[in-house]
């Protein structure tokens, strides 16, 4: 059933329909509507869950960890400073192999205080072992949350679905909600293994020496690799159910493109308009949306980008002193490959500065030049 819903409320509905059993969250702009709506659902009895109104984001993640360890489906949402505060225990959730799902409203990091969007908060958590899905639209948010629960519970790694502050969180868009029975069929109740259960006493996370710690990391890494196939299967199943199919690297008019813009998040949506405009003007432009950042779809990226004339990666983030983070990852996946195109990077839109169609077209234009610098800071006012 189609409804017009904001990104934040879409998150709330997804948590409800996914039948999250324990929600533990702390308010932060621009996430607050997510938890306010969930509070209403729980109070009204339409969501059978316990909502722990914790006193900090660190505790929010820890409570999710505890609940998940007990076997329950656990969910939280946060943003920027809150996600950063969780950092220590993001590692804990992944290393403990717990399928917690988190919605992160991409917000720029302070100081100075800012409530507007960029991706540094989630990308800073790159190495924690969490899967990361970058949503392009409110529909994408809903679908990604359901898919991430299913995948997380299978591979035993936590997952975050990431959406841009205000551009998605506070913007109302049509979202097609499946029926609850359809969601239940796609995402049945969690079958938890290795739970904290008095019937099967064990210690979890005890002191582990060099003899065994290494192998635990090996298994965690393999789980992230396995996630690629599991995500593909889950996305296929979801597509068969709803008609909406997701690819980890999602091309738009790339087949005969000479230049490809690599984008993520809401910018992927804008990029499609830019591509259409360029095409109408006779330019062979395409765009590639990165739906997942972890696991990184290296095989898909190579398949789609090898042989192209030029790749321009648009990063709404920066790794200071280096370049945009998606750019580094794209380059790494193309390294040493036959037919690897030259890659240039553009940083844009930090702290919520808008990325318009005109901006993307300008970046595409600049990228096509032979003397385009490898790294560009789009639209900066020096």
């Amino acid at each position, binding site marked *: 059933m189609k409804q017009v819903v904001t990104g934040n409320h879409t998150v709330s509905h997804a948590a409800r329909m996914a039948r999250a059993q324990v929600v533990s969250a702390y308010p932060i702009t621009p996430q607050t509507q997510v938890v306010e709506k969930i509070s209403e659902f729980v109070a009204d009895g339409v969501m059978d869950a316990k909502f722990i109104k914790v006193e900090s984001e660190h505790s929010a993640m820890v409570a999710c960890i505890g609940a998940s360890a007990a076997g329950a489906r656990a969910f939280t949402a946060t943003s920027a400073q809150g996600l950063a505060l969780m950092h220590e225990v993001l590692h804990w959730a992944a290393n403990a*192999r717990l399928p917690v799902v988190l919605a992160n409203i991409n917000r720029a990091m302070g100081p100075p205080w800012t409530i507007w969007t960029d991706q540094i908060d989630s990308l800073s958590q790159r190495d924690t072992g969490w899967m990361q899905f970058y949503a392009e639209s409110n529909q994408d948010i809903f679908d990604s949350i359901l898919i991430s629960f299913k995948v997380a519970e299978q591979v035993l790694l936590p997952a975050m679905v990431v959406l841009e502050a205000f551009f998605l969180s506070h913007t109302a868009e049509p979202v097609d909600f499946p029926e609850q029975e359809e969601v239940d069929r796609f995402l049945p109740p969690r079958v938890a293994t290795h739970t904290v259960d008095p019937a099967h006493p064990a*210690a979890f*996370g005890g002191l582990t020496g060099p003899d*065994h710690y290494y192998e635990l990391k090996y298994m*965690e890494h393999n789980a992230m690799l396995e996630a690629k196939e599991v995500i593909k299967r889950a996305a296929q199943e979801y597509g068969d159910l709803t008609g909406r199919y997701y690819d980890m690297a999602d091309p738009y008019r790339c087949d005969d493109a000479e230049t490809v813009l690599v984008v993520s998040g809401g910018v992927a949506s804008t990029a499609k308009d830019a591509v259409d405009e360029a095409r109408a003007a006779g330019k062979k432009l395409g765009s590639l949306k990165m739906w997942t950042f972890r696991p990184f779809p290296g095989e898909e990226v190579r398949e789609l980008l090898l042989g192209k004339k030029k790749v321009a990666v648009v990063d709404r983030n920066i790794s200071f002193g280096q370049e945009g983070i998606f750019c580094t990852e794209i380059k790494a996946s193309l390294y040493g490959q036959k037919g690897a195109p030259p890659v240039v990077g553009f940083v844009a839109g930090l702290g919520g500065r808008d990325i318009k169609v005109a901006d993307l077209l300008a970046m595409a234009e600049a990228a096509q030049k032979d003397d385009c610098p490898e790294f560009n800071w789009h639209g900066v006012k020096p």
Partner: protein
Amino acid sequence: MTKKVDVRGARDMPPMAKSLGRMSWNLTGSWRNVTPVIDYEKCTLCMLCWKFCPDLAITCTEPPRIILDFCKGCGVCAEECPVKCIEMKEGL
């Protein structure tokens, strides 16, 4: 006393660091350099020694017996015995 768990590689391990056995293979009796000896003539079976052993190294029986495999030689039993019938002797 239990056996050690044989974990040779990833295939022997659960996906997370979850325990597979108990610590009772670890004979902490090797830690001590003094050993409690109970004089059963004086023992009144009050069970305070059993009650106060941090290592559960005294049997809950009449009379109590020191479990030498695990006794760390801390001397709490000797100190707490109301009739002072436990002596901490040098050596194992």
